[in-house]
């Protein structure tokens, strides 16, 4: 479903300096799988996911989503994905129902089909109760549920979730995680980025460890432990990430 080959992205900072946010990232993710992109803040998770969501154009490398190239077939890619990030917000003056309607329509759904999808999605995420309240009067947890519903209203085969639980309390996080699991069980390919080790271990079938713009290791928790000779994911993560830290940072 998601195939990423040596994807790179360099930015230019306001001073004109080039910054490599992502270098030669390679990973793949199949249908029904939850793939966790695990890394510290600033490691390149968001850049990777934004490139895959076609918001950013990669400077080198290729990636396909559901068989579509992210550069040359960006529109088809956007049709096949649902995208939620920690920073995406909802339109404050719309209601959840209107939000789903709007995004469904942008995805080309119309008429009775659109109505049915909106109804189904509202019930899937248990939003019906507050479906007609303005978004800005919803609690944080409700909002994130609506956000997820917004991302899947067009029933995409692939979900790209960029730290969707950041800023949520454990209870709300749990509901989001449950929703993600349900979606994966229904056959969706989920790419999930996080910096929380427990969440990654609990949720993801496979992990990619990302640090300093590079995917440094890939595999299941057991594989990563074996690779680093650690007894748990925590040990493996630090072994992999610290190995890549700048010498000056390690000395400190």
């Amino acid at each position, binding site marked *: 479903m998601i195939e990423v080959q040596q994807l790179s992205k360099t930015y230019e900072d306001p001073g004109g*300096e*080039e910054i490599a946010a992502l270098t030669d990232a390679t990973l793949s993710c199949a249908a029904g799988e939850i793939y966790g992109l695990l890394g510290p803040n600033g490691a390149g998770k968001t850049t990777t996911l934004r490139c895959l969501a076609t918001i950013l154009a990669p400077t080198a490398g290729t990636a396909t989503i559901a068989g579509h190239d992210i550069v040359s077939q960006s529109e088809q890619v956007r*049709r096949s994905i649902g995208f939620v990030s920690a920073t*995406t917000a909802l339109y404050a003056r719309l209601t959840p129902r209107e939000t789903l309607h709007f*995004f469904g329509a942008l995805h080309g759904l119309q008429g009775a089909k659109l109505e049915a999808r909106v109804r189904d999605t509202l019930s899937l995420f248990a939003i019906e109760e507050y479906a007609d309240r303005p978004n800005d009067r919803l609690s944080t947890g409700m909002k994130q549920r609506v956000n997820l519903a917004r991302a899947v209203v067009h029933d995409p085969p692939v979900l790209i979730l960029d730290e969707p639980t950041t800023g949520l309390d454990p209870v709300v996080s749990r509901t989001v995680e449950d929703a993600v699991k349900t979606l994966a069980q229904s056959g969706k390919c989920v790419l999930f980025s996080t910096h929380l080790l427990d969440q990654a271990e609990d949720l993801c079938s496979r992990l990619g460890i990302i640090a300093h713009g590079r995917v440094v290791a890939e595999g299941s928790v057991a594989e990563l432990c074996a690779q680093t000779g650690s007894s748990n994911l925590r040990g493996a993560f630090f072994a992999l990430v610290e190995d890549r830290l700048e010498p000056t940072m390690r000395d400190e």
Partner: protein
Amino acid sequence: MRFEIIRQVFQKEWRETLRDRRSLAVMFGVPLIVYPLLILITASISQGAAQRVRQQKMRVAVVNAGDAPHLVAEIERRDSGLRLARGLDEASEARRALDAKRVDAVLVVPPNAEADALASRPVSIRVLADNSRPVWSAGQKKIDLVLQKYQEQIIAQRLEARGVPATLVRPIKTTRQDTALPDRRLRNLMISLLPMMLLLTGALGAFFPAINVITSERELGTLESLLVTPAAKMELLLGKVALVLLSALLTAGLNMLSMALVLWRTMSQATALAASNAAKSAGSGDTAAAPPPLPGIDFGALALAYVAAVPTIVFVAALCLVVALFARNYKEANSYATPVFFLALVPTMMNLTEARATPALLATPAVNSSLVIRDVLNGQVSTGAFALAFLSSCLYAGLMLSVAARLFSSENLVNPAWEPLSFKGLRRDGKNGRPAPRRLPAVDEALALGAVSLLLVFYIQPSLQPLGLLPMLAGNELLLIAAPALLFAWMFRYRWRETFAWRKPLFGEMLGATLLGIGLAPCIAVLAALQSHFFAPDPAKARATAELFVPALQSNPWLTPIAVGVLAGVCEEILFRGPIQTALARRLPMWAALGVGGFLFAAFHLDSYGLALRTLIGMILGWLVLRGGSVFPAMLLHAVYDAVLVGFSAFTLHRFGPEQFVKMTDRPDALLQDELAKQIFGGAVVAGPFLVLAGWMLCRSAHRHKARAEQQHAAQQREVQERVAQAPLTPLT
């Protein structure tokens, strides 16, 4: 472009706007409620103050009052509006009272004044007053009236003493009434307020929606979720632009209508009041004046004024969009917006200066629509001025929208730290010491370059004119036409060779261009003569041009044609066949690019008479460059063409003398009365088409030759590459 998506985006933005009370208040609340209140309150306050001043009696002291008893009697009449301050007979005392503001005016009557006046001796009465006091402006007339009545009385008494009836010196009694007054006052008020109001409210109506649909979406992160839908960026932008424009136009329109109605209401009330007052006071008098008509609103003019303002409102709205795109957050957007609102002051300034609508001003953004609105309301607008202002405003609005589209298409839009307003990117070098790649000009850049150059020509050329033909031409061509093009190319790092088509021409092309230049001159002259049968040039303008040429042609009959040809040929080709045509040809099919480029070239000469023919010449020049890939044949053609025309002028000047030469601009057929001129002109007209044909064929064959050579070169290159690829790799050692 999918209309359905644009509609969806627009609908969503519209729904949000309708739920945003702040935007609604600005759009509907201000015009419908605040204006009427505001204007009614200020009107009643100012009217009240004016009325107080009018009703207040003016205190007047009369020095030597006893020597002018009839004057005192006039002052003491009830309807004089004056009150006599008694006991100030002494001049110095009265003066002190005036300085202390105990009286408002002092009439200094000389001793024995009335007796002298009746005896037909000259008498002069001095009026002392502090002109800076507001009471004086209202009171002045009252004193004048009293003095006038006093004078009439004296005259009547003098005549009576001589046994002549007083009516002898006043055979006709006139009453005057200005029927246009209320209408004109309303119109003047509208003229002073409407342009500013339209721009200001347009900006206000665009500003909050623009921030809502762009800046807030960026700041809150909702933009990201929009960008991952299948909707294309331009579809999203169009939906948003539609909302911003609608809001701006609606707000401006509502404000205009509301203001017009409020002003009309206030004015008709004031007029009716004045009429009833006049009727009351005239009731006792001899003739009752007819009440003045109530002012009316000319809705046709109002609608036309609004239409004139539409492109400028669109421009202002696009400016708000650009501001919203520049800003990283709501706060920044607010501070960037201040200069936009300053634009609304432009019309007020134009009103103060009472500027005439010159072509330059009609092509200046914001200024042009205020001038046109003024002239529309005055009923003095010409179709040409309206069209120029409208079209140039459309051009600016389009440019501003294309800037918005460019900013919106940047992927940095989702990067919260993005600083589009940084000038670091303007000259893109110094990045790790590596310069950014050079590129070709874009269409909006080329049009912006054209606009910059056009404005420079508009503003600066008239001041160069007194310097004489050649200095003016040199300044015009080098500084105002060629220099901006080269500066743009340097600033935006264009690829020099490709942008300006600096490639070696073939000999055949150059020869062909020379023949075309010589041959086109008489052909175009004949076409111009044909055209003048139904569209004649402005004789005054033609004469002015001829007069400009006379001194230069007299002093340098050989050098002038060559200098004119070279300057115009080189510099104008640099601009028009350089960035402008290169950019157009990248986006448009060849013939469209030639047409648009030729039209721009013609429009630059600011001469509607020559527009069609210059477009044709521009297209021929453009064809030479696009087909041959080199600008030099076009420069040569242009130079030869101009040199031939100016050279023929030098000949006629020499033959006929300056007076006849200038006169002949009106009557070109006078030329044919001279045998030699007739022979030369006739020969040129006969030879012209053959020269054009020969030149065209030479150029075409050269172009074909070039194309063949290029194909061969490409084929050779391919062959070399294939051979290299197939060759076995051998170690170098």
